[in-house]
């Protein structure tokens, strides 16, 4: 191998190779919507805790014990034709756990920032999300809604 070839080889070896090759795909499922119910009073904030039965719930499935980065795209308002209602998410409104029924003991995190954690020994990870809506005193009546998007990717670790 001449010098030129060696240089290319070293470049590939140290810069081109991915850190790992995973054999199982990563899947993500939204199991439940975030539901503030049908009794939001104008002028009174309403909160759904991450531990509440009405919190949003997600399931991630992939390679056992592999690290993933979790990122939310969160709305700032819920919408009803021509009207909006503020929604916000506190720094402890999200939580994850490798146990499906571990909502109450899940580890809290800030849904406004990405978090990195590992899939469980069965390749699963569960995420819950609460939030707070803040209707004004004159908030028009009706059902407001908007999308919450969850994005997941392997970190390579």
């Amino acid at each position, binding site marked *: *191998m*001449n010098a*030129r*070839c060696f240089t*290319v*080889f070293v*470049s*590939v070896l140290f810069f*081109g*190779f*991915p*850190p790992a*090759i*995973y054999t199982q795909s*990563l*899947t*993500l*499922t*939204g199991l*439940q*919507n*975030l*539901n*503030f*119910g*049908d*009794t*939001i*009073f*104008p*002028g*009174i904030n309403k909160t759904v805790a991450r531990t509440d039965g009405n919190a*949003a719930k*997600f399931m991630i499935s992939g390679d056992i014990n592999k690290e993933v980065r979790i990122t939310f795209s969160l*709305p700032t308002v*819920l919408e*009803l034709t021509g009207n909006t*209602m503020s*929604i916000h998410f506190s720094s402890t409104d999200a939580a994850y756990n490798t146990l499906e029924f571990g909502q109450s003991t899940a580890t809290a995190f800030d849904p406004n920032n990405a978090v990195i954690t590992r899939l469980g020994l069965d390749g699963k990870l569960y995420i819950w999300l609460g*939030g707070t*809506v803040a209707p004004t*005193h*004159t*908030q*028009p*009546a*009706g*059902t*407001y*809604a*908007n*999308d*919450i*998007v*969850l994005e*997941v*990717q*392997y*970190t*390579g670790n």
Partner: protein
Amino acid sequence: MKHPSTSLAIALVAVAGLLMVLSGQVQAQITTTVTASGTVLTPITVTGTNLSFGTSIFPGINKSVARTSADAASFTISGEASKEVTATFTLPTNLVKGADNLPISFSTTDGGHSTSSTGQSTATAFDPNSGVTTTLSTTGNLYIWLGGTVSPAHNQAAGAYTGDITISLVYTGN
């Protein structure tokens, strides 16, 4: 004909590219979407008519308007049926005409509320200085009346005096 080392280099680059593509596939971002939703109840609205002490207030003689009088202020409130609201007043201590003041006061029974528009005479009394918490009717209505008393001095300057009475209504959440 290509030099063998050139072919090797091309092959290595191709393999590297393939591996990067594979790496990109397995580390690609995946997304899912759920919905956040909730239903807002009917907001509270209120309209009012004025509290009128008339055009014949004698200097030195107090004049009262009862909550049951046709001259009492009245407020018509609407909102979500059968939900609880709190009404509070911002009450003046004087009616004003230019630089002149006419004292006004509100007793502990000068407020009255009813879920019936015709219920003024039988309305439940309350102290307008502290407000009241009550429940809207099954059709989402509430009616409030307000009386008061003005206390002109013996040398009260003649003329029409006025002041603002403000009512605020909020849901309690019940």
